[in-house]
């Protein structure tokens, strides 16, 4: 039943009014691009901003102009490829040469050598610190070769501020397919069948959530994207929103179609200025192309999207608190006897999903539910993005299939612990997550396994700690964080966390009592039973897991008044190791209390314990590790 060949569709310049026009536009974009033309793609994500990537990008543009290469070389700022530790990061296409730790001084050499003469500068290649091997291509670097980058891959390939770049790599084709070939119910079935679970932390099956919002009564329904990534240590949502905002929008429009919603919100942290800017720009572009707004792609379906900025409250990541904030109120959660899928924003059926969840949707629609459920474990499907940070060699954003061994993540991708120190634990799941010790490093990372060992998936932060991290101090840190972020509605959370801080502070000050550990456990049980929202219910996790796995550290603080990791100030002293100190005097001037006295060259400096405030400046500044902490 082949149709008569129709005249070829012309690529539209403004609105795209049909799937055919979208394909014509895509063909035109691809045709304009010469795959052989060299392109310098530099990460301009927030992480690399700290390395001065904006100036580096400008320097490349200037150098290209200076050498009159404007027409033969493209320079492009891209989203975050994830290897933040090694920024500024750049890839030169079509060869795919990957340079790391690029500084502004390197710019002329890169243009002269690699672009003009085609020579690789080995100094800028990634070198494995253990094997000393150099790697030329990004995909071969061990940090990348063990990953499966379904969502993150496009980040380094497109300019996030260009909708044409996104369309050029197949963007919005999932939307076109859904709107014209799949009924809303079937879309939901597909999502259910894929086994996709919410990436914001809860791990609730996405398809079921969509179904209940679709089934809920009401003419007006909302679709909301949660980009209030308040979880310290996690930045995958920021990276996706900055690096590929259209993929999130496409997922949301598909979701709205399936649910029967015509209005949506992106709730995004104010602390992520670049993500706010990029998503706002993406919405404007999608509207002007007719991919968002009224009569999307000529299908008759309409969906309007607004951006709302959060004000820096951790609890607003909780769905009911977020919706309260969207209504212009204080972000306090409410009891969820009635689900937000029935009564959410303005008491109307509302479907909230996390950024990463939304970004998965176009892939599932294009490649199918079976393809997606073929990745991962029995109960957790697909990939998960983790931010691998802390005391690990290769810090950054990684994406792996569910079920990868924790050991392979920390030691394989992460390259082990910095400075040859000893691994202590990985903290996952954000402030209400838990610590996982060495004995559990061989678990397969998915929603259920992490919960089984006392932690949780959360949004996917993985903070690696080493022998110099004090577990009691870490527990105190998290409880303090949650105490500050508690909205104060429920008494156990408001007062219980405060009491926990007092007890933990006593312990780290060396004033702990034998019964304190048991008291902490009792408080933890009350918090779990009597708090309304997940913040309070899970707030004691860091305390419980540290007691469970590192009880000896608590006991060392309480019984021996000793901090084994050398962190808790009242229990430690700094001293100069005379054999190691050459008397260079580098630490003398920076010492804020003038506690260090210079004697003479080749003679160790003297540290006056009376004056020392244990600020650690001398410890940080000494390259020869001649300052000891006891």
């Amino acid at each position: 039943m082949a149709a008569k060949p129709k005249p070829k569709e012309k690529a539209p310049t403004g609105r795209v009014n049909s799937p055919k026009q979208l394909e014509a536009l895509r063909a035109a974009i691809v045709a304009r691009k010469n795959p052989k033309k060299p392109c310098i793609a530099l990460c301009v994500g927030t992480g690399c901003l700290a390395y001065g990537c904006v100036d580096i990008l400008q320097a490349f543009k200037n150098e290209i102009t200076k050498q009159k290469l404007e027409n033969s070389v493209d320079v492009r700022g891209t989203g975050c490829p994830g290897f933040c530790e090694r920024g500024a990061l750049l890839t030169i296409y079509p060869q795919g040469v990957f340079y790391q730790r690029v500084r502004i001084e390197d710019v002329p050499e890169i243009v002269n050598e690699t672009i003009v003469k085609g020579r690789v500068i080995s100094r800028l290649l990634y070198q494995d610190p253990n094997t000393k091997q150099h790697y030329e291509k990004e995909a071969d670097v061990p940090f990348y070769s063990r990953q499966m980058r379904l969502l993150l891959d496009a980040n380094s390939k497109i300019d996030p501020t260009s909708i044409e770049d996104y369309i050029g790599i197949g963007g919005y084709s999932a939307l076109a397919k859904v709107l014209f070939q799949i009924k809303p119910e079937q879309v939901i079935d597909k999502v259910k069948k894929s086994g996709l679970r919410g990436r914001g932390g809860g791990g609730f099956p996405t398809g079921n959530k969509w179904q209940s919002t679709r089934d809920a009564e009401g003419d007006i329904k909302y679709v909301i994207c949660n980009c209030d990534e308040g979880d310290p240590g996690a930045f995958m949502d920021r990276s996706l929103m900055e690096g590929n905002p259209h993929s999130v929008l496409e997922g949301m429009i598909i979701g709205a179609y399936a649910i029967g919603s015509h209005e949506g919100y992106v709730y995004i942290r104010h602390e992520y200025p670049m993500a706010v800017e990029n998503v706002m720009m993406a919405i404007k572009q999608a509207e002007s192309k007719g991919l968002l707004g009224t009569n999307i792609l000529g299908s008759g379906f309409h969906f309007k999207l607004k951006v709302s900025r959060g004000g820096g409250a951790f609890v607003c990541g909780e769905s009911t608190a977020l919706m309260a904030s969207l209504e212009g109120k204080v972000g306090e959660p409410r009891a969820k006897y009635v689900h937000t899928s029935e009564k959410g924003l303005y008491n109307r059926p509302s479907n909230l999903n996390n950024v990463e969840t939304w970004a998965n949707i176009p892939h599932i629609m294009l490649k199918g539910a079976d393809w997606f459920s073929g990745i991962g474990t029995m109960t957790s499907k697909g990939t998960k993005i983790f931010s691998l940070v802390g005391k690990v060699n290769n810090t950054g954003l990684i994406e792996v299939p569910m079920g990868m061994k924790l050991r392979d993540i920390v030691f394989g991708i992460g390259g082990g612990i910095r400075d040859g120190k000893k691994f202590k634990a990985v903290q996952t799941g954000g402030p209400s997550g838990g610590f996982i010790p060495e004995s559990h490093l061989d678990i397969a990372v998915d929603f259920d396994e992490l919960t089984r060992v006392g932690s949780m998936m959360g949004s996917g932060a993985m903070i690696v700690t080493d022998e110099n991290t004090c577990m009691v101090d870490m527990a105190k840190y998290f409880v303090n964080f949650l105490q500050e972020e508690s909205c104060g509605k429920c008494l156990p959370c408001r007062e219980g966390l405060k009491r926990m801080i007092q007890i933990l502070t006593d312990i780290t000050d060396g004033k702990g009592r034998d019964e304190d550990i048991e008291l902490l456990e009792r408080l933890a049980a009350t918090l779990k039973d009597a708090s309304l929202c997940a913040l309070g219910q899970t707030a004691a996790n860091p305390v419980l897991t540290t007691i469970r796995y590192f009880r000896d550290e608590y006991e060392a603080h309480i019984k021996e008044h000793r901090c084994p990791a050398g962190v808790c100030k009242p229990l430690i002293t700094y001293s100069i190791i005379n054999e190691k100190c050459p008397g260079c005097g580098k630490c003398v001037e920076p010492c804020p209390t003038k506690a260090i006295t210079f004697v003479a060259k080749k003679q160790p400096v003297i540290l006056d314990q009376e004056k020392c405030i244990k600020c650690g400046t001398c410890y940080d500044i000494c390259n020869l590790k001649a300052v000891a902490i006891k």
Partner: protein
Amino acid sequence: MPSSIAEIVKKYDRDKGQLVSILQDIQTEHHYLPKEALDEVVSLLGVPASQVYSVATFFKAFSLTPRGRHVIKVCLGTACHVRGAAKVVEKMELDLGIKRTETTPDLRYTLETVNCVGCCALGPMVMIDEKYHGQITSDKVSPLLAKYE
């Protein structure tokens, strides 16, 4: 030319739901939320003053007192914490002679702590105004501060 409160409110179609965004814009304009500005928001949006005040005090991003020319945000997120962010903020307090959340009497600096700026791989992170500074240790604090007049 700074936009007036009326213009900001108009930009959001007088939508009560956009209160947080409106306050964000006012704060960007004035570096804090002056009382007169909040009064104007109350009358323009037609919401109770108690609601505007509760939102303005609930969210960490807002300040009801004037802030310094340079706002220093030391990240105390987990990744920065394990790499010694506490020492960085203590050194700042020492150098500036103020505690976190305070402003120097000459209105040159305001010292704040934030929970995460999302640059976790580069901790400890310090943000001064709009600029990001990564891998800051306590010995780098004084030279860094000196760069901001």
